[in-house]
């Protein structure tokens, strides 16, 4: 495996994945406009998430149940990554036309798979900057956490999204090895857009309702939601180690819990590569053939 090739391919796939989402303009003024727009959206969403996180964490700190927030936080991050990952995976793995141009080049199937996955992961990290960084910093400040917490939090922001994204990639690869979605690309993207709008409206309605809810009621419903975290953690095996690592004051415990997550993630990565090598190219080349007919 050649790391330079993987880095180069990742950059190309990443740029290509933005090809469909950005306007075809090379003008400086439009680039500056886009940057300002993204910055505004970033700050706006960050402020909303920060506001909610502050209210919830400060309420939980008062009743010494702040760790409940971390469980919910990781669950929401995982759900968000998995949901967003479905669209990213299908787009990057199957709908981008680059595979036809990469296949005649001397790169291995493994290098292509890893690079495509890297490209998706990096876009997820960008999303995580908004939904992940702000709540964890607020949590650290409100619980007067030490440097160990911030180091562990930074590590978890990097490693935690990998597992949900791997699971989604594996499922998408299996489905796409027999599904014939390529010719329905436009339909797929229309449905995806509608789902995103519906969710955005639902979230906006739900958050506007919470304004009438008192802090006590909110804490009560969060404690109820914590029941869900406890229920899920038997199946979502990296959830508990993540909470333990971030709440631990011992460096040894934090390292052990982190290693548990790294081990599960590494194992899943191997499974993804094995399945991908067997099925991905069958699906992707099948798509090439179908578009040709």
């Amino acid at each position, binding site marked *: 495996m*050649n790391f*330079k*090739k993987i*880095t*180069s*391919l990742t*950059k*190309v796939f990443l*740029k*290509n994945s*933005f*090809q469909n989402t*950005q306007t*075809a303009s*090379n003008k400086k003024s439009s680039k500056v406009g886009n940057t300002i727009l993204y910055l505004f959206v970033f700050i706006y969403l960050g402020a909303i998430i920060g506001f909610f996180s502050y209210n919830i964490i400060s309420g939980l700190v008062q009743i010494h149940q702040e760790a409940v927030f971390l469980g919910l936080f990781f669950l929401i991050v995982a759900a968000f990554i998995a949901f967003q990952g479905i669209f990213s995976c299908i787009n990057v793995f199957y709908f981008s*036309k*680059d595979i*036809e*141009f990469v*296949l*005649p*080049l*001397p*790169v*291995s199937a493994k290098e292509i798979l890893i690079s495509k996955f890297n490209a998706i992961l990096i876009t997820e990290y960008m999303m995580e900057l908004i939904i992940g960084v702000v709540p964890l910093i607020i949590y650290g400040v409100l619980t007067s956490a030490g440097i160990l917490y911030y180091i562990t939090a930074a590590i978890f922001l990097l490693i935690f999204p990998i597992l949900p994204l791997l699971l989604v990639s594996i499922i998408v690869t299996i489905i796409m090895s027999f599904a014939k979605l390529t010719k329905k690309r436009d339909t797929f993207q229309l449905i995806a857009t509608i789902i995103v709008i519906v969710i955005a409206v639902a979230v906006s309605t739900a958050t506007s309702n919470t304004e009438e809810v008192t802090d006590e009621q909110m804490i009560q419903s969060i404690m109820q939601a914590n029941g869900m975290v406890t229920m899920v953690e038997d199946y979502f095996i990296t959830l508990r180690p993540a909470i333990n690592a971030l709440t631990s004051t011992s460096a040894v415990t934090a390292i052990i819990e982190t290693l548990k997550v790294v081990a599960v993630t590494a194992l899943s990565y191997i499974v993804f590569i094995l399945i991908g090598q067997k099925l991905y190219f069958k699906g992707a*080349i099948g798509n*090439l*053939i179908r578009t*040709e*007919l």
Partner: protein
Amino acid sequence: MIQINNITKSYVKGKKSVDGLNMEIRDGEIFGFLGPNGAGKTTTIKMITGILNPDEGDILIDNVSIQKSPLEAKKKFGFVPDSPDMFLRLKGIEYLNFLADIYEIPSDVRKQRIEELTKKFEIQDALQSQIQTYSHGMRQKIVIVGVLLNNPKNWILDEPMTGLDPKSSFDLKEMMRKHSKEGNTVFFSTHVLEVAEKLCDRIGIINKGKLVFVGTYEEMKEKFKGKETLEELFLEITDEL
């Protein structure tokens, strides 16, 4: 040298797009691959370049099987596809550096070759712009430059002249001639019969997935005496007259 040994490909069960194709493109020759639309030219090229796997048969590039040792075989050729609309968000220079990374070309060599080739194709001033801002001809040129960076022994080109201005087309033909004279292989598909006549050492004509003629232009004329023009010859061979 490219050896195509009895390859068959079906997209739909029972309908062979390429049917038992046997061809050998020798070292030192320019080989033109002709055929009407849908004859199986692009499918054949996709199998030679490892994009598609044949259902039966094997393809050897300099005696290395594209199916059994794809990485080794893919280092031995450069491929220009029929559509140059690829990696449009990359700048020209990013695209060339990407290919240089993939072919593991050392930085001093790549710098010199990029300078040389982009100057020859007159695209050196466009390297800092994204490929999506290029015209069709310029996109074609950057893809060709990308292929030539690695200086591969075997060139495989799918409709390479499409969209090129007369000078670039002339330059490319000259480069193809020079490449073959140095003992290398040039395999290209084309619709332009005159190009095949003037440029190719041998011609292969495919129709409905089967190779219906392979030989020199003179041999073709000899075989189909009485046909005055190249078009007539071509239509006669492909049963369309």
